[in-house]
């Protein structure tokens, strides 16, 4: 049952990922990307990491992709996509992309992934209580540093978006 759901979800993920890079229309790409994020969340649920799944939906599928869609709708991208007709650009892009893909596959093959022992495996590993206790005890410093980073990013965004003196707002 779990295995079959894994296959179904994987097909959806790959379909979404391929659609993202292969569709001509930028809006369609964004919608395929949303599908990809959604099926990735389904993968997290299959791994019993419900909190990660929910946060992935809230942050990526819910907030970031809405902004993507928002920006793409304002731009008229169809007129600016002339590079796609240029063969040299296409060949160069394929070579670069293929090389990066090859390096990634090689890295994954070399990575030593520890096998999960089904007898000592804790079902609650991905649950929010466990995660919260770990974040606030063992990984407290990295966690706080990340929050400072977010605060800086937020302040920077506000600074960039602020109206300068004398500048008209519309």
């Amino acid at each position, binding site marked *: 049952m779990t295995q079959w759901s894994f296959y179904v979800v994987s097909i959806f993920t790959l379909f979404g990922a391929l659609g993202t890079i292969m569709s001509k*229309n930028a809006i369609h790409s964004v919608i395929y990307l949303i599908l990809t994020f959604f099926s990735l969340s389904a993968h997290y649920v299959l791994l019993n990491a419900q909190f990660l799944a929910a946060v992935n939906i809230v942050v990526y599928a819910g907030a970031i992709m809405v902004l993507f*869609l*928002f920006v793409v*709708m304002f731009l008229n991208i169809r007129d600016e996509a002339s590079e796609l007709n240029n063969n040299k650009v296409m060949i160069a892009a394929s070579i670069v992309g293929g090389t990066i893909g090859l390096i990634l596959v090689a890295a994954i093959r070399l990575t030593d992934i520890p096998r999960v022992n089904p007898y000592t495996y804790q079902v609650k590993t991905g649950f929010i209580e466990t995660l919260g206790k770990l974040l606030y005890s063992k990984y407290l410093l990295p966690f706080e540093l990340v929050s400072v980073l977010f605060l800086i990013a937020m302040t920077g965004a506000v600074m960039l978006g602020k109206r300068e003196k004398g500048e008209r707002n519309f």
Partner: protein
Amino acid sequence: MDSVFIIKSLIILGIFAISLTIAAYETYFERVIAAFIQDRVGPDRAGPFGLLQPLADAGKLFFKEDFIPGMADKWLFILGPSLAMLTALMTSAVIPFGDSILYDGQEILVQGIEVNIGILWVFGVVSLGVYGILIGGWASNNKYSLYGAIRAASQNISYELAMGLSIIAVLMMASSLSLRTIVESQHGMNWNIFYQPLGFIIFLTCSFAECNRTPFDLPESENELVAGYHTEYGSMKLGLYLFSEYVNMFISSAVIATLFLGGFNYPGMDWVYATMTENFGAVVGHNLSTLAGTLVFFAKIFAFIFLFMWVRWTLPRFRYDQLMDLGWKGLIPLAIVNLIITAAAELSGHALLVNWIGLGVFIALVYAWSAIFGTKKTSL
């Protein structure tokens, strides 16, 4: 296993059917209440008291021409209303509609699924809800629809922040994300509305905005944008958009009742439980008191639905900059203040007292500030 599975499926089907039925009859009651407020008669032609009006409306919408504009993006045009309806219906999966049913010695929860991330699920689905409007508005290939869609997106994103912050205060009180645990922690009249009056008001305002209800219905304001994102829609596609708004209203009333009004808790429920189990036996008594809790929960939901309608026919619509000012400069700072007060109150050990003292101090400070420095009118 089998009977448990069947009962669980029946509960899920029942929740689904009930949310659709209630949404259908909300359209009827909206007209009746509007008529009452505006001193009119309201729908009274279809059936006794006009009770068949929703069926007549649905029939009319189904038999209208299903039209897709020539320059529209056909698939996305169809996807828009489907997504709006889908996301509206998904939230009810985690809401605890009642305590539990005892059957065959097993306890079956009156809830779609009991997960430990309940409220995050609600929040995630709410944040997906905007896609239906955004995609539909863009696919129509009409600038008014696009304006409406973009207004809807920016409004939903802005009000989600304040909503999330006011939810966090509730989570601190219950110290769990599971909606059932939140409800159980409010047992014995410890309703969160008494501890979180400010959080309740913020959450209520944000849920009005998330449902695109008046005074926040700018995405479809007819005098500026014709009809906003659903200008190009007709037939049942328009019906699905309008219907999803009513489903959203039902679900958000349920979420408010769960988070702040104690869900299926009611005063004297322990006495009712004791009397029921004494007179009807342990199993039947338990099930009957579950039924009573569910009925109370629905009464709370109906009260909030009435509030939604009352506000719609009482308040005028905001201007767009007022809407953004209220969200970013009003509700978010208030939600953060509420968060700090709640944290202090939880740590002090006297949650109720310190919450009210904190709120009083905050209001006094605001008054003092505006008395000393207050020559400028605030944007609110």
